[in-house]
Each structure stands twice: as C-alpha cells, then as structure tokens.
C-alpha cells in the first residue's frame, strides 16, 4: 500500500469521526423538530451552555461571579471545592431539565400556533439570550474540560499501521485522535439508546405520536406540554454530550456554539425528521469536507471546511428538496 493511500484512509477515518460529532449535534435538532416542528437554532448554544455549566459546577465556580463583583465591588470567583465528575454531570442534567421546563413555560407555551418560521426566529432569540446568560453566569474566558476522557493521538494505532506502507521509513502511521474514537462510541451508544427509547417505551411512542399528529396525540390524552418538556430535556442531554465531546476536544468557549452551524448542512442532507438521516448526513459531510480539503483545498487556498458542507448541501437540495431521508413534500392544492 502506498503512503498516499493510507493517508487517504486516515483522512476518511478522521472525516467519519468528525461526521459522528456533527451527527451528535444534529441529533438534538432532529429530536426537537420531530416532536414540535421547531427548528431549534439554539441547539449549539445549548451545547455550549451545558459544557459551561458542567465545567463551572465541577470546578466550583460561583455563578454570576462577574456580575456580583461588578455590582457589589466584591472579588469572589470560586467556592474553593471540586465536584466529582459524575455528580457534576448529574447536576448539569438537572440544570438542562430545568432549562427545558423554563423554555416550555415561558416561550413555547406562548407561541403554540405560530408559523414555523416565527418559532425558528424565536430560537435564534433564545440562542442569543443563552449566549449572554451563559457568559454572565460562568464568565466568558476559555475553559478546559476535564471529565477523564482520553486525549491525544492513539499511539497504538500509529505504531500498528506504521508498517503498512511500502516505504515504511517515510510513513509515521495513521493519526487518529483517541477522543474522536470515544466520541464515536458514545454517539453510537446514544443513537441506539434513543432508538430503543422511542420504539419501546410509552413516552417514546407518545413522542412519535405527537410528531405525527398533534391533534391525534392530544385526543389520546398525551399532554403536549409534558411532551415538549421531555423532548427539550432529551435535547438538552444530547447537547450536554456534544458539549462534553467538543469541549474536551477544543476547550469550552464561544466557538462551541458555532458547531450548530455545522450541524445545519447535516440536517439539510439528512432531512429534519430522520435520526438515521442525521447520522448518515453527518458522516457524508464529515468525510466530504475532509476529502475536499485534502484533494482540492490546497489548490484554492484551503480552509474550505468553512463552506464546503453548505455548498454540498445546497447542491444536493436543489435536486432533492426534502433531503436524503426527509418525507416527500406533497403540495395539496
């Protein structure tokens, strides 16, 4: 095997794993969209917020320390304790559930019969709000996330593949991030458990009923409000997982919220209503953008990852407007 070929394989594998990360974020979108028809732009910010909260709790930060100091002229920052990771995660999940309840109570409830586009814009507002709120609550400096996930390249893999290339001296083996591999595993577990949840539990079936037909769901006695709280909680949980993965990878900072933007083309490809679509869309985009950068990038100045996903999705959509797995849009006259 030539080194170039191996490099290509490495690019593809990296792409697949990046794709899994995209899928992870996209999953949150799909969940909420399916259950409430809301395109939740705030999903990315939710991931940021969840990660901030987790780090904040873990490191014993005083919430709103910045604000308190500004108002009272004090200088408080930390409680001075460390919270165990598992407990911190549990507390963060609690915060995300609380968040879901607040969102349902104060926003969704008042926007029930609005057009989808209005709801979409409301989530943009929500995203802005949370971004500011998260910063005020936990401060805006970059934080490192340490929940005990492995990091760095996998030396074992590097060594193991080193000999594969024909001209071994020039080839250093495949570089794959351990974190990415863990993330892929976690994502797979998450998808499987979500699928089981939605197929085999009463709540899951209720969720699907609501997705199919609000009226019908109401008539069988499912409270729409409860459903929405559950869905947003799950989405919050997914956001937390995504936040942990991305945060561990590149630090907890503002740019984390932009991963939502990465998830959008994934959704366009996979369709807004399909969980498998989100996964496969994510993989396609992950692989596609890495390959494109690898093959074409150097010719046109690089950094094509910024837009490749979008342009790919755009091209794709022109030919299949409902996405890969989306239901066919039938226009009634």
């Amino acid at each position, binding site marked *: 095997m030539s080194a170039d070929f191996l490099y290509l394989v490495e690019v593809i594998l990296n792409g697949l794993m990046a794709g899994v990360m995209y899928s992870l974020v996209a999953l949150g979108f799909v969940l909420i969209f399916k259950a409430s028809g809301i395109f939740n732009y705030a999903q990315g910010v939710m991931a940021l917020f969840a990660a901030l909260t987790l780090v904040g709790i873990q490191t014993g930060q005083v919430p709103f320390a910045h604000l308190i100091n500004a108002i009272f002229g004090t200088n408080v920052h930390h409680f001075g304790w460390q919270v165990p990771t598992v407990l911190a995660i549990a507390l963060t999940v609690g915060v995300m559930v609380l968040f879901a309840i607040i969102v349902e109570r104060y926003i969704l409830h008042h926007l029930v019969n609005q057009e989808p586009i209005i709801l979409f814009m*409301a989530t943009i*507002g929500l995203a*802005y*709000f949370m*971004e*500011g709120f998260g910063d005020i609550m936990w401060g805006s400096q970059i934080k490192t996330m340490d929940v005990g996930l492995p990091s760095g390249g996998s030396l074992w893999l590097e060594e193991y593949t080193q000999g594969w290339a024909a001209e071994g001296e020039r080839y250093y083996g495949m570089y794959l991030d351990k974190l990415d591999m863990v993330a892929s595993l976690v994502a797979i577990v998450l998808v499987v458990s979500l699928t089981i949840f939605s197929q085999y539990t009463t709540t899951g079936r209720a969720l699907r009923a609501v997705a199919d037909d609000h009226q019908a769901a109401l008539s069988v006695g499912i409270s729409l409000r409860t459903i929405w709280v559950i869905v947003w909680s799950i989405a919050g949980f997914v956001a937390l997982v995504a936040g942990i993965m991305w945060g561990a990878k590149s630090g907890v900072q503002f740019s984390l919220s932009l991963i939502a933007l990465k998830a959008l083309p994934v959704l366009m490809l996979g369709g807004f209503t399909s969980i498998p679509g989100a996964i496969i869309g994510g993989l396609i985009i992950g692989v596609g953008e890495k390959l494109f950068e690898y093959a074409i990038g150097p010719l046109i100045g690089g950094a094509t990852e910024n837009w490749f996903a979008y342009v790919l*999705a755009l091209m794709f*959509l*022109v030919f299949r407007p409902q*996405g890969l797995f989306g239901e066919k849009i039938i226009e009634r006259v």
Partner: protein
Amino acid sequence: MFYRESGDFKKTYQKDSQTFPIKFDRMRYYFVLAVAFLVIPMFLTDYMANAVMIPFLVWAIAALGLNILVGYTGQLSLGTGGFMAVGAYATYKLMTAFPGMDMVTVILLSGLITAFVGAMFGLPSLRIKGFYLAVATLASQFFLVWLLNKVPWFYNNSASGQISAPEREMFGVIITGPHATPVAAYLFCLVFAVALAWLARNLTRGRLGRSWMAIRDMDIAAEIIGVNPLMAKLSAFAVSSFFIGIAGSLFFSVYLGAAEVTEAFGITVSFAVLFMIIIGGLGSIFGSFVGAAFMVLMPVLLKNVLVGGMGWPTDLAAHFEYIIVGGLIIIFLIVEPHGLAQMARVLKEKLRLWPFPH
C-alpha cells in the same frame, strides 16, 4: 387624538393610493425629513455621527433590503453579511480600479453587482423552502466570506488582507477616507437611505410588490394568478441584494473606512440585520428604520449606562446586550410578531379612533 380626517377625501386614485393618505401623517413625514436634512446637520457631533447616525442609516438600508426578501417575499435569508461583503469589496475594487469614478456611481454599481450575486444565490429558492432555504442562504454567507478572504485579487494583494477606502469627494467635500467630515458623510448616507426607502415603497406597492407578497402569503394561489414563482423570488433576491450591497458599500467606504471580511461581515451581521427587521416589523419600510435605530441605539445606551454610568466592565455590558437582544426577540415574537411597526400602526389606529376604544 391628533387626527382630524373630516373633509380629507380623495377624488383621484393617485391621491387615494399615496403613501401617506392622511394629511396628519403626511405633515409628520415632511417634518421628519426637514429635521433630518436641515436640523440634525447643524447639531451633529463627531461622536453622534459615527456612533449613531451613520450606522443607523447604513443598517436601515440593509434592513430595508432584507425586509424585502423576508418580510415581503417570505424567503428567510441568513446571508446578509455575505452580500454586504460583496457590496463592500465591489466598492473597493471600483474605487481602486477607477479613481475618477464618482462615489454615487461606485455605490450604485456595487449594488448592482451584489444584486447579480444575490440572484445567483437565490436560484435554489425555487426548489427549497422555509428552513431549508434559510440554511441554504448560510452557504452564501460562508462561501462568499471565504472567497473574499482567500482570493487576494479582491483585496489587491494587501498584506494585511484588509481593504481600506481611498479618499473621495462629492461637491468638493470629502466623504470617504480618514479626513471625511461627519456631516457630509451623514448627509451622503441620508440621501441614499431616503432614496432607497422611496424606491422600496414604490417597488412594494405595485405589481412586483404584490407578486412578492402573493408568493409569501400563498404561493400556489400566486402561481394560478400568473405569478412566475422563480421570477418573483429571483427579483426579490436581486432587489434585496441591491439594497444590502449598497449598505455594505456605505458601511465600508463611509462608515468603517477599512475592513477585513471575516470580522466585518461575519454571520453575526446576518443575525443583527434579521433582528432589526423582526423587532422593527416584517413587511414594513418604517419598521426597517425603527429596527435599525433600535439595534444601533440599544448598545450605545447600554454602554453609556452600564459602563459609563455604573462602571461595569465592558464585556459584562456586551453580555447583557446579548441577553436583552435575545430576550426582546422572543418577547416581540410572542407579543407582537409584526414588531414595532405594527405597534405604531395599532397606536395610530387608536389615535384615529380616539376617544373611542375601538
């Protein structure tokens, strides 16, 4: 309360369909114009011009443009920043390539170039609707910014990757570059803002505007009536981009003076303009101005109160800005999805009916 409409009757369709059919409104409009053109320039400080008035006018133009697309035609776009960048870079290229060209021509040409680019990116709108389209417009945002950043020809190979506006005059007064006088720059932008508002009003009141709104309200019925959906949407994209291009052009040449594409025309710009029209009012020319005013003034006020008044750190004030903007967007969408303009309309109706409540 202030309206006296008895005897204000119309004998021609021309009078009946004028922009301000009620005399009181008409007078108020002339009053505002007079203040903007005659009074404000007399009292305009540098700070007021640069922090408030000029950005307000530029953003108002951008909001007008986006409103044509989102408010009037119902096509949600998140590509405003990218199109503004096109306008800005077109201006830069034109100014440097044709030093003798006067600024009005430069700006109009920049608008036309952006209109063309906008129409190109509008092509998918025939097939893609709703969120899909909104997301697709993000493609233009990222692609355009990347393109302008990566191709050195666009910034004349400058080492910093920045573009900066050369000095230009109109009627012997410097309006661009570091030595521009704020009053001249303000008036220059004002003329554009007023003229473009007038243009937007004309376009939205007639055949074209009705075809846009028809597409927005019920695209199937619109098609039955003879509206070609592609033409309607493309024209909306083109006109909208024309406005946004001019806004980008003025933003760069008159307001900023120098710009770097990823900083000045990022995705935040797209959202900011979208917020202006949500808060101001979708499908309202007046709303575009109000929304722009709001989004320009709010941070200034916040900064003056929190940082200047209470001595808070600036970053905290900035975070509050996010909270307030986001919160307001949600509140507006819940309470009044048609924004401040609709509130003004309701208030006006109330005043017209005064003392009756309804």
